[in-house]
């Protein structure tokens, strides 16, 4: 980290957060996030290179959870910016509290009757000071003195033009406020951006980030996830759950079951006291995994049909 922060002209922000690749992986596993090689590798590099991570992948594969887990692991505060259409500077970066400014000016005018009030220059200095600044998530992450993890969630929902807001913060870790000057980070936050890929992100944004694509986990990892996240599940059941879900994903479905849906399903099975899944039992609980009627019908036909009768 020290090298990277020196290159950015930032104060040294302490030693690297992670010792080695294995430390990342082990640490994430400790806080209940089972990372594969690529995930832990990219998190490690993000720390070493002081670069933000752009996480893409299907819904429900743990993109947001990754940021939360890293925050938990490093003991940092998580600052979250949920993106939506129409998000603008005043919601993401900072805003002047103009009602308070208005009051300040009016207060100044009333004072005038008795003695000479503040001059305009003083007043201007005053109302554009930090007291009147409302910090929004991005600025907050920069100004924080304790370690933070900044999560910019679903960045693909903002318009292309709004993306530009992020660029300064992502590459320089600073925010320029015309009236105040440039606010620089006193520590380097770890930044995660997630995207559901509903539109192509701009080249400028991608270039500044490390890219991580999280896909559905493979059989072994999914089984491990089920076993760690669902208390009281037997090895055998976890294995069966993971295998059925994998088979479902090979079908052409409108919405393949995500990891979170797999977990919901496994929890349901445990609650119902199911020991092994048979076709009939699977059929009754399939609606937890699949959210479209057409998908459920298809899965029933392909996987469970004849043996249920």
């Amino acid at each position, binding site marked *: 980290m020290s090298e990277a922060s020196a290159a950015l002209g930032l104060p040294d922000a302490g030693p690297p957060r992670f010792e080695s690749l294995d430390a990342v992986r082990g640490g994430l596993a400790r806080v209940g996030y089972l990372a594969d090689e690529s995930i832990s590798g990219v998190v490690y590099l993000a720390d070493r290179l002081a670069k933000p991570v752009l996480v893409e992948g299907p819904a429900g594969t743990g993109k947001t959870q990754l940021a939360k887990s890293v925050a938990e692991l490093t003991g940092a505060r998580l600052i979250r910016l949920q993106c939506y259409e129409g998000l603008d500077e005043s919601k993401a970066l900072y805003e002047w509290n103009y009602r308070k400014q208005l009051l300040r000016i009016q207060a100044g005018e009333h004072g005038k009757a008795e003695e000479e009030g503040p001059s305009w220059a003083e007043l201007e200095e005053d109302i554009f000071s930090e007291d009147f600044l409302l910090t929004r998530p991005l600025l907050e992450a920069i100004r924080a003195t304790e370690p933070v993890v900044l999560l910019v969630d679903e960045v693909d929902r903002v318009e292309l033009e709004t993306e530009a807001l992020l660029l300064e913060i992502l590459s320089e870790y600073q925010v320029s406020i015309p009236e105040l000057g440039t606010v620089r980070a006193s520590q380097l936050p770890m930044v995660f951006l997630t995207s559901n890929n509903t539109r192509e992100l701009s080249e400028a944004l991608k270039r500044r980030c490390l890219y991580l694509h999280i896909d559905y986990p493979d059989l072994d990892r999914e089984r491990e996830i089920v076993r760690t996240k669902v208390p009281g599940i037997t090895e055998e059941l976890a294995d069966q759950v993971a295998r059925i879900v994998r088979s479902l994903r090979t079908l052409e479905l409108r919405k393949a079951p995500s990891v979170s849906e797999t977990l919901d399903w496994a929890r349901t099975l445990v609650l119902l006291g199911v020991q092994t899944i048979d076709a009939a039992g699977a059929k009754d609980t399939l609606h937890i995994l699949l959210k479209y009627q057409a998908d459920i019908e298809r899965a029933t036909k392909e996987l469970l049909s004849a*043996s249920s009768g």
Partner: protein
Amino acid sequence: MLDLLSGFVTELRRSGLPVSLTEHLDAAEAVKHIPLEDREALKYALAATLVKSSAHWRAFETAFEVFFAVRTGRSETGAEGDEGDEEGADSEGEQAGQSGMQGQGRSWKGGGSGEGMTPEELAELLFKSLISADAGLMNVVARNAVDRYAGMEPGRPVGGTYYLYRTLRNLDLDAVLERLMGQAQAGAAGGSLTELEERLAADEFKARIEKFRRAVETEIRRRLVEDRGAEALARSVRKPLPEDIDVMHATREELALLHRVLQPLSRKLAVRLARKRRHGRKGPLDFRATMRRSLSTGGVPIEPRFRHPRPAKPEIFVVADISGSVASFARFTLHLVYAISSQFSKVRSFVFVDGIDEVTRFFEGVVDPAEAVARINTEADVIWVDGHSDYGHALSEFHRRWGDQVTSRSSIMVLGDARNNYHASGSWVLEDLQAKARHVYWLNPEPRDYWGSGDSIVGEYAAHCDDVVECRTLRQLEHFVGNLA
């Protein structure tokens, strides 16, 4: 290492990935921080810094396999021993393999079996490796199989697809799968498996066989790299990005790939267009809303509000040639147009060969356009005489039956290569339609150089179209459809 990296970046750029200079620098920086002998870590470090879209992953992986292939003959113990956990298991087989694999790689010893393994022994070993899911054994089998069956000839400038085919054909993986299933049946608790269990077992074995197939492919690649060097091989195996595949000449595998990228592509396009529509222009000032807003600032209208504009949506007529050569192109276009049909007030589609039929009804109430497109092939009535393209007849028929429904709000897209088998052109129809409709476009899936050659009469139609567009790849198609709405 830096030289190798530069070569790799150049190769990525050649296959069409936009890798910028900063990204190259980032990659060089990232490589410093990871243990170099860890090949998996290297792969992810490079992927994270160089590849910024999941659609480019395939091209990246191919190039990576070639440039950073596991080299045998060098560093007997160092590199291989430290591979990721998957390969860690096979270090024993790997070591044994290396000692015998020097040079031509013809004679292979060790791993518990003799030099001249008979085909039966090999098949037995493959079966064993698959049933126990033993990655090390799988690699050993792959190496042997390539020795025995691929018949590789040094120095030939090929990408290895044929070697792969030849090896796998001899191993007869379908029969192996059947045998595996038989084994699973026999080993089941109650004598036979339920359907669900059978299906799960089949998927499991298929996954293992796929893994084996990949092992064979890697083995062949590795030998080709040894034979001809990375850069030469990279040129042979380079694959176009999905957006750049020529639809008319796509292989079956590529078509499947196109289908997979089509859905996210159309969704992105729909989102983009919907936003453009909403944010494109600002409507007139909304006085009432502005006043109401100003209450919180003491009646000073600080933030003006505007009405949302509602521009008229165009009505689209798609007239598509679905005869053999251009059929897949027509399918992609119909799929894309329907995926964004919410951006149009109405979409009507017609398909023709020498007769013409309206197929709008297939798309009504269907969630997935792919289903409807599949139905067109079997159900549409498009043959009039002999099933050879006749643009003239199809167009005049279109004019007779639906011509009066074309209004000044309609845009017409004609899809086809205009290869008319020397029939009458019927271009008067387009002339008439152009006078009535808002726009007439012609999308031609042939390269521009071929237009007007042979029986192509696109020039004759072009005179009556607002624009004739070359549309060979998904990228071009997306660009056109995006501008339409």
